[in-house]
């Protein structure tokens, strides 16, 4: 393989040497060395002689007679000079200008988007439907807890931290709280990732803020909570004898609702696209389509 490659390289090198020798492009030293090779290598001399014959014959080729005159008629020359290129049609200009304007609108809209109009907006107020949807479970659970407290009044001297909410109160009442937290977490996971979802995760480590997550609780949470009601009731009954004052601090339903409104995370609220993004999309489509049309016409 390498022998063949070196043979090709030597052959090309010999051809270039022959060509340069015939055209007088070799230096004196190169010419002397090459002519010495010619005397020593008959095959190289035969190639050089054949190339010299080729060049001599080519240079002696007769000139072809002109078939006609190639001068340019003056009227044609004037026409070619006065109309070097066809005029651009008015509609083509309209397409070009329209494409440029649409591109400018697209850039402006993108600039508005990047300038901060897409920054976190104020929370929209909870709609009446959402409020109505969020309120009932709070009332029902609260009333259930109140009913449980009424059914089994706790004896005085029960060890319960002051200010504890009915939901957080049962010492062994982890199941209902866990169920609510699990429900809230599942609701958080079901929502699209957004900044509105953040307050829902925080109450997990802050029991005081637990009611704040309740308005967002979905049907699953309500189901889980209601399934835990009997055990909660039992636990409350068991605890009632040791913590009678716990029933003194239940939050009223309207307070719970206000807390829910403060935390207000509309899980089911439709995600509205900002107007400038719609404008940007339309402008981009217009710029591309008009540009392609203008380019094809031109």
């Amino acid at each position: 393989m390498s022998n063949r490659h070196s043979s090709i390289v030597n052959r090309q090198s010999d051809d270039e040497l022959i060509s340069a020798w015939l055209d007088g492009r070799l230096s004196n030293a190169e010419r002397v060395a090459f002519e010495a090779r010619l005397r020593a290598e008959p095959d190289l001399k035969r190639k050089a002689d054949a190339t010299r014959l080729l060049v001599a014959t080519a240079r002696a080729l007769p000139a072809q007679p002109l078939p006609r005159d190639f001068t340019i008629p003056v009227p044609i020359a004037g026409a070619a000079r006065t109309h070097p290129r066809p005029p651009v049609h008015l509609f083509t200009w309209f397409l070009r200008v329209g494409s440029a304007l649409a591109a400018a609108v697209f850039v402006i809209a993108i600039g508005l988007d990047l300038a901060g109009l897409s920054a976190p907006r104020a929370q929209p107020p909870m709609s009446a439907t959402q409020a109505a949807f969020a309120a009932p479970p709070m009332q029902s659970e609260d009333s259930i807890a109140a009913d449980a407290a009424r059914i089994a009044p706790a004896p005085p001297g029960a060890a319960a931290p002051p200010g504890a909410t009915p939901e957080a109160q049962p010492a062994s009442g982890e199941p209902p709280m866990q169920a609510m937290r699990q429900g809230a977490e599942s609701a958080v996971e079901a929502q699209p990732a957004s900044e509105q979802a953040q307050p829902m995760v925080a109450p997990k480590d802050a029991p005081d803020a637990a009611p704040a997550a309740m308005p967002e609780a979905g049907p699953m949470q309500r189901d889980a909570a209601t399934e835990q009601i009997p055990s909660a009731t039992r636990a409350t009954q068991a605890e009632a004898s040791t913590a009678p004052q716990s029933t003194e601090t239940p939050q009223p339903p309207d307070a719970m609702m206000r807390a829910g409104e403060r935390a207000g995370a509309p899980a089911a609220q439709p995600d509205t696209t900002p107007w400038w993004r719609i404008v940007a999309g339309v402008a981009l489509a217009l710029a591309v389509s008009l540009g392609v049309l203008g380019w094809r016409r031109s």
Partner: protein
Amino acid sequence: MDEAALIKAAQRGDAHAFNALVLAHQSQAYNVACRIMGDAASASDATQEAFLSAYTSIKSFRGGSFKSWILRTVTNACFDALRYRKRRPATSLDGLGAEDDAQDGDFETFLPSADESPADAAERAELRHLIEQAALALPPDQRATFVLSDVQGMSYEEIAEIMQTSLGTVKSRLSRARAKLRDYLLSRQELLPDEFRQ
């Protein structure tokens, strides 16, 4: 009027001045086109196209050799025509009888000179025809380099300017073209002088 004045007048739109330049260079331009294209009709079309193109773009001529500039236009027109021909191959009816016409028009070349026999003259004419046909089988860039160098007798520098390439490329293309044609000739030893026959 010298060439520089004609060029300036043509750049101002003087068609007569441009035609004077055409008259000065049309023979060489047509011969280059003829050797590259291989037939008279295509060469005529390419030459006319090149002169029209030169007329519309003569304002872009920034000095230097006008001959090189016009021959560059001609070679470009020939390459365009060859590319078009390659995409859409067709048989031209203009070629019918062209051999007879060429022999008629080229009859003087078959006449023996005083120092060669009629047999040698016929052999020489056959060799020319063989080289012309073999040159048409070369790649276009090698063919144009061979025509400009060995048929038109231009220097490497002029060829590099016409073809807008480097001197090294010109040398390489020329040596390859000559080697291919030489090997072809050596394979047809019956047309070569006695010293080449083995």
